């Protein structure tokens, strides 16, 4: 559940850190048991997700379609390990359901489905879909002068999809200050480094040139994430892009910044070793 509005900073970041650790451990267990998943991206996103759900966003998990809720769109829909873990932890569905990850007839598909799972706003999986949909949600809020915020998390390799840049134009044109994009900038896509595939740098300049306000943070630093994501957007007059510098596989030494863990799955030995480190 969301934290109080004005918590002591240390208490809050301590809470977020504990949740992030839980997300890493639980998602890795899911991937190990299913022998499928995308653990490297789960780990690069874990701190961002924990900060959003346990520090920043306004929601009631028992009313997942409340019109006034803050929205979160998981554009990097392949990282369902971390996404499902945080949704369960936030109370959208029982934590026990996580044990069904990718089993036949499970609600926990490899990519999220809003018709099965409360807390999922739109079905993602193909890349470059989250930001355009989130732009539409933010426009609805703007038309109604509603005060909910819309957050969307993309991978960085995903920004090679042109659809993102279409909606980047639209969001800036409409001055969607209620829209926040977080880029999980782990610099690794499925097969190689982004800069060795189709370069994104200088990424901050690109978003600025498109008319966005840009902040760059350490995507594993909960205080930095909290500060930039919880700041009121009112009066900014621009959508916000937070470039969160992260590491794929963050938290486990042998997975750290290692492209083979994009969709690598652990052996029993690797699983036990990782769990010893994730404490």
């Amino acid at each position, binding site marked *: 559940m969301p934290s109080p509005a004005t918590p002591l900073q240390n208490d809050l970041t301590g809470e977020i850190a504990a949740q992030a650790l839980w997300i890493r451990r639980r998602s890795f267990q899911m991937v190990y048991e299913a022998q499928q998943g995308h653990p490297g991206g789960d780990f690069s996103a874990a701190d961002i997700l924990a900060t959003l759900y346990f520090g920043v966003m306004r929601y009631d998990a028992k009313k997942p379609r409340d019109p006034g809720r803050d929205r979160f769109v998981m554009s990097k829909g392949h990282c369902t390990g971390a996404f499902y873990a945080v949704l369960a932890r936030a109370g959208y569905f029982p934590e026990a359901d996580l044990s069904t990850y990718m089993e036949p007839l499970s609600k926990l598909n490899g990519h999220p489905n809003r018709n099965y799972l409360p807390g999922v706003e*739109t079905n993602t999986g193909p890349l470059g*879909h989250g930001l355009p*949909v989130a732009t539409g949600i933010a426009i609805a*809020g703007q038309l109604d002068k509603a005060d909910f915020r819309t957050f969307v998390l993309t991978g960085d390799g995903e920004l090679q999809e042109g*659809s993102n840049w279409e909606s980047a*134009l*639209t969001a800036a044109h409409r001055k969607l200050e209620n829209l926040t994009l977080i880029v999980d900038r782990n610099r690794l896509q499925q097969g190689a480094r982004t800069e060795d595939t189709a370069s994104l740098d200088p990424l901050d300049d690109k978003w600025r040139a498109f008319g966005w306000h840009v902040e760059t943070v350490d995507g594993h630093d909960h205080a930095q994430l909290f500060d930039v994501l919880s700041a009121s957007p009112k009066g900014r007059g621009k959508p916000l892009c937070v470039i969160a510098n992260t590491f794929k596989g963050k938290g486990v030494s042998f997975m750290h910044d290692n492209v083979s863990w994009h969709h690598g799955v652990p052996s029993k030995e690797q699983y036990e070793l990782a769990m010893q480190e994730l404490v």
Partner: protein
Amino acid sequence: MSAAAPKKDGLYDCRDSFAATIEALAEADSRIVTVVSDSVGSSKLGGFRNKFPDRMVNVGIAEQTLVAVGAGLANGGKVPFVSAASCFITGRALEQVKADIAYSNVNVKLIGQSSGVAYGELGPTHHSIEDLAWLRLFNNLKLIVPADPWQTAEAIKAAAAYDGPVFVRVSRMAVPALERPEGAKFEIGVAETLLEGTDVTIIANGTMVHRAIAAARTLAAEGVSARVVNMATVNPLDEAVIAAAAETGAIVTVEEHSVRGGLGGAVAEVVISTNPVPMRILGFPGFVPTGSAEWLFDNFGLNEPGIADAVRQTIARKK
């Protein structure tokens, strides 16, 4: 609300009915918004823009964002009518239609304008004779192909009233208002039988319906009793009407679409698995040469004599 006035010679542009209906619906329901991709004029939405300037979202020439923004607006409680040329809103944004609209099962209305070969001379890039084949694969996406101004207005009203994803294929080709019995109603998934007949059934939709009726009248003069069904909803199909059509022993389908995977393909899927009878699918074979829409209809037999010929040949195959 009624269909808009005829343009000339008693013929109508169904886009006028779309525009008049959406404006009237928007008066009554503040959730209704329109989403366009620099397609205000081609969608005939200038009047809507003047009446509801804040309720039109123009994303620019960006069809992926066009469709996705529709999904997002639905998430925010709006009832978006997303309108653009049918060739682009389907082909260019097909994955958004699949994932953001159909698979996500959201309350978005997609309006495919100037469908078929309406942009005749502009060529196959601007023809939309593949749209139904593509969209028919998304099982929960309702597909409606209205045949005239009244049915266009009714389809738009039905789409607004239905809570879920709908695609309405709107034509800019001049069509007459079809004669219907007093009190005729439109319902998604329910076909209408416009002419009764017992020797053969012509199943058509959109701009082909009035041509099918003309062919049936020609055939009647020869003593052939042809039933004419307007199957405006391609998904879900009115399978009872198709089963009844098979009882006449022969079926000819006619559509302003490719012969691959559209209305004819849909009807054939039902016929082949229930009561196989001789069938013929009339439409375009694929990419077509340069020519006006009317020239293309005539060249590919999508006219009264062409349909009548196909019917005669199909009846000849009856056992």
